[in-house]
């Protein structure tokens, strides 16, 4: 038997168990194999990173007015700088660009309340942004009403077009996707089969075939003479394609809702549609927001494919328009790096946001 009332003080860890030397030992050089790996890794970094930094920053030319002003040792960012406006707005006339700016600015402002915890009308705001705002923005950017000059869609291009395609694409794919998800879970055999066939079809084919199809076949489907805007054709294909992916994400959310929720709603006397709208979907959609953000990121990257059917998104502008300007021949690399960087920035930020959302929502459960 023993007893003590003397509480021992907490001592700091022994010297060889902490500190920078210890950290180096355990993390980089803990075993012969690890040491070899560290040395190889350091060597690889040495031959890749300094030359890249040299090219991109130290030897680069940032301001010049033509290709003579660019030495060939480093990157010629002046090329991008000079044509920056076109990479953002495409062929949209500079005098009217304030319309595009206003539309995007108002979108951002409208989205801010969604991030404020105490804001209560989130679902109304979300519905407005997704379903009504695209039309308002379209009228504003396209023109034709209220004395605004018409800027046809073949003048739209650059980053603006990329954002328009992705945002409108996901916005209109969302309601369709939700209906398909509900249809796939339905007990009515015809409804279920039609949903399954639709979803599996669009998920099984590459986006390029969808774009070709909407570009080439859609005019054939419609009565003689209806002229179809190229962008609209692409958008229809993209919306149908994305709806299938959204449907699968939403279906995952619906499956995660415990059966008890459905039963409680029915027990209260709610009809199918009312219980879906008021009880199930709000919970399911909240669950799948990270999944929807991931779908949006994928769509954002996929918009680059529209350059193959002749629309000039950010990549399309860089590749086809900037690249064929005789004043600036030969700076293909800079253009690709610029476009790649812009996409990376957006996608990385969105994926970080989606991850933090996932963590937040998990703790809520």
């Amino acid at each position: 038997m023993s007893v003590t009332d003397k509480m021992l003080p907490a001592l700091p860890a022994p010297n060889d168990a902490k500190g920078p030397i210890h950290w180096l030992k355990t993390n980089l050089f803990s075993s012969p194999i690890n040491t070899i790996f560290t040395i190889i890794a350091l060597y690889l970094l040495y031959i890749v990173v300094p030359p890249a930094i040299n090219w991109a920053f130290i030897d680069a030319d940032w301001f010049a007015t033509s290709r003579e002003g660019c030495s060939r040792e480093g990157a010629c960012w002046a090329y991008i700088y000079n044509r920056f406006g076109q990479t953002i707005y495409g062929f949209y006339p500079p005098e009217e660009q304030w319309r595009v700016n206003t539309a995007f600015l108002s979108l951002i402002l409208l989205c801010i309340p969604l991030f404020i915890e105490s804001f209560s009308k989130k679902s109304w705001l979300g519905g407005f942004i997704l379903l009504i705002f695209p039309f308002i923005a379209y009228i504003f950017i396209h023109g034709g009403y209220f004395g605004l000059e018409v800027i046809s869609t073949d003048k739209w291009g650059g980053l603006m077009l990329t954002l328009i395609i992705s945002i409108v694409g996901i916005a209109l794919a969302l309601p369709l996707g939700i209906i398909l998800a509900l249809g796939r879970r339905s007990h009515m055999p015809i409804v279920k089969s039609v949903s399954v066939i639709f979803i599996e079809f669009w998920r099984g084919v590459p986006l390029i075939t969808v774009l070709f199809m909407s570009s080439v076949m859609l005019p054939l489907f419609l009565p003689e003479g209806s002229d179809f805007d190229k962008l609209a054709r692409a958008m229809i294909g993209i919306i149908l394609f994305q709806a299938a992916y959204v449907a699968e994400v939403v279906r995952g959310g619906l499956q995660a809702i415990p059966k008890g929720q459905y039963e409680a709603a029915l027990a209260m006397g709610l009809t199918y549609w009312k219980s879906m709208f008021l009880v199930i979907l709000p919970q399911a959609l909240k669950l799948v927001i990270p999944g929807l953000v991931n779908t949006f990121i994928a769509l954002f990257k996929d918009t680059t494919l529209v350059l193959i059917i002749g629309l000039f998104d950010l990549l399309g502008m860089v590749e086809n328009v900037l690249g064929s300007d005789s004043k600036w021949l030969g700076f293909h690399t800079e253009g690709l790096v610029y476009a790649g960087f812009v996409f990376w920035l957006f996608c990385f930020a969105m994926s970080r946001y989606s991850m933090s959302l996932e963590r937040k929502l998990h703790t809520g459960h």
Partner: protein
Amino acid sequence: MNKANSKAAMDDYIIRMINLNKWYGNFHVLKDINLDVKQGERIVICGPSGSGKSTLIRCINHLEEHQKGQIIIEGEELTGDIKHLEKVRTNVGMCFQHFNLFPHLSIMDNLTLAPIWVRKTPKAQAEADAMKYLERVKIPDQADKYPGQLSGGQQQRVAIARSLCMNPKVMLFDEPTSALDPEMISEVLDVMVELAEEGGMTMLCVTHEMGFAKQVADRVIFMDAGQIIEENTPNEFFNNPQSERTQLFLSQIIH
């Protein structure tokens, strides 16, 4: 320290911990632990959460590494030596709070995995031994099922049988009943009691089940803030706790 001389003195002791200290990073989690365990002894370790009791027994089979002090098992000091570690782990069995049964293997395969791959036992022999232990924990009919099909209490009993299949000399229990629903706790405790009384197994058990301690333990140890505060026979410990901290702890769990 001459191994031959002190071996006689240490022969009684199957586990010795001498001035054991452990840090997690800069956090001093075990402070100067001194503990000697004789063969056949049953020791219950209790204490508030964060006191280091789980860490203590996990140091014995080297799931946690200690930075200062010595752990001596069956006369040999526990260092990072892998050959020695092999021997230690086959002689020391462990039961976890969350059972940790292998979900992709049947119960029978769970039990025979280590005997076949570590002790190189022929399959038929391993299965016969496994059935013996399944009968001992009173669930022989579940041999062909999978862990996911069993209740928590059954899973923990299987976990005990799995450790027993390696014929260990010491069994370590890390809060074996804390994750169980109340009605299943007694079926596991019964197995542990039988193990102690019929089997004469040396046991170190971290638990809050004081009834079990009273019935079976030779010694009860109370730990707080990384050190051993009080250690006594169950009778003395529960009826006559000396330290204030022990008294406080006991008043909180016995209500």
